[in-house]
């Protein structure tokens, strides 16, 4: 149990996928314009990441390891993630048309979110067991949503500030992202192993 809590805190704050490993930067910069869409995207990523890590774990251990085909992990993981996103999309479209409308193009974009592939690969290199993988995937998604929401909140406020011409738009967004990453480095001493 203590192990799982440690994984959760470590993945959400200390080793945040976005701000420490710099994975999933594209949606982090692209979808963080508005709080509302950021929240929807965060939830969708959390859902897909949790499922992706757990199913990848099953396939990795029961198929690839058994037949000695570990070099196939990248291809198989991408296959799993892409299919999952498709399934999630179909489910959301059927059962919650309003959520489907608000997520729009971001839903299929999750396929190419490297934070999810990253989470699946980390799960392998860190030798997590099944339960640990599920918690890891979930907390990775929560960490992603947290950072996305913080970023969206800051950007919504910054819109009203009087910014020098050279810093407007992408430049300031990147500076904010860098400062956020610095802030999250402050968590690095939180868990001593």
């Amino acid at each position, binding site marked *: 149990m203590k192990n799982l809590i440690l994984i959760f805190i470590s993945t959400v704050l200390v080793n945040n996928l976005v701000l420490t490993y710099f994975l999933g930067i594209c949606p982090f910069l692209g979808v963080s314009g508005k709080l509302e869409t950021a929240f929807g995207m965060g939830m969708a990523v959390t859902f897909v990441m949790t499922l992706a890590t757990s199913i990848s774990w099953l*396939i990795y251990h029961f*198929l*690839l390891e058994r*037949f*000695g*085909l570990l*070099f*196939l992990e990248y*291809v*198989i993981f991408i*296959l*799993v993630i892409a*299919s999952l996103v*498709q*399934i999630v999309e*179909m*489910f959301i*479209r*059927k059962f919650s*048309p*309003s959520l489907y*409308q608000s997520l729009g193009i971001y839903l299929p974009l999750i396929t190419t979110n490297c934070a999810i592939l990253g989470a699946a690969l980390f799960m392998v290199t860190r030798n997590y067991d099944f339960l640990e993988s599920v918690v890891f995937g979930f907390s990775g998604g929560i960490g992603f949503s947290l950072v996305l929401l913080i970023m969206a909140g800051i950007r919504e406020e910054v819109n*009203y500030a*009087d910014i020098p011409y050279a810093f407007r738009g992408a430049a300031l967004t990147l500076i904010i992202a860098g400062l956020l990453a610095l802030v999250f480095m402050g968590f690095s001493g939180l868990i001593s192993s």
Partner: protein
Amino acid sequence: MKEVQASLLVLGLTGFSFSLLLAFLSKKLKVKEDARIEKILSILPGLNCGACGVSGCRVFAQAVVKEGKIFSGCLPAGEGMNKEIAKALGIETSVVKRKSVAVCRCGADDKEKKVSCLYQGPKTCKAADLIGGAIDCLYGCFGFGDCEAVCPPGAITVAKGKVYVDIEKCIGCGKCLPACPSNLFELLPLAENLDTYYYIACNNREKGVNVKKVCSRGCIACGICTKGENSPFYLKDNLAFIEYKKIVENEPLEEAKNKCPTKCIMKFTVHSS
């Protein structure tokens, strides 16, 4: 060679099973879209104003197809367009009536509102509200026209710091209500038997002395309008309000409007409903 065979087999089988699953689910979870929805959607003005009572034109079109009748009607579309929708479905149209119109509870223009610090930030009311407003009155209109920008039929105009609502154009959708950081807009219910309506164009909840300091057109809560029998006016938080349910005839209101010392009771007339 064995490895190639094994990897081909594993990858092929996994891919095949996933594609089978996807094919099965896509059949099972297929969402049927009625072709008429798209057709109605192309007729609708596409403002997504929500005046019909549902969230957006697509939902409205779906409901129209599902219910088989135009249950509350699209207001900005007008009668002609509603008839067209009905024709597309092959049904009768019902009469469309708006239930309310929006009024702005600040009737002071640039000359009447006092300004002691010049606000030079971005010209939106939301931005000005972040630093406490652009005028001395803490309750009044800043006049940057956030409401003008959101109004779907373009009924709101801001001129010389004052908001004008074109009552004939207003569809009563209420989009201006959340757009105003000072919450100045109010939906005024339209009654069957009246064509002239009154409202109090002030939102300042300070005492009369303090209102006078910041605006020459503010309600000072003198209570003159509440005098007299059958007066629908009442005072609350140093501000006059009208109890619209109490209105039977317009004479006491007209009288109160003429007596009001700061002239902050306004009226408008609805020609067509």
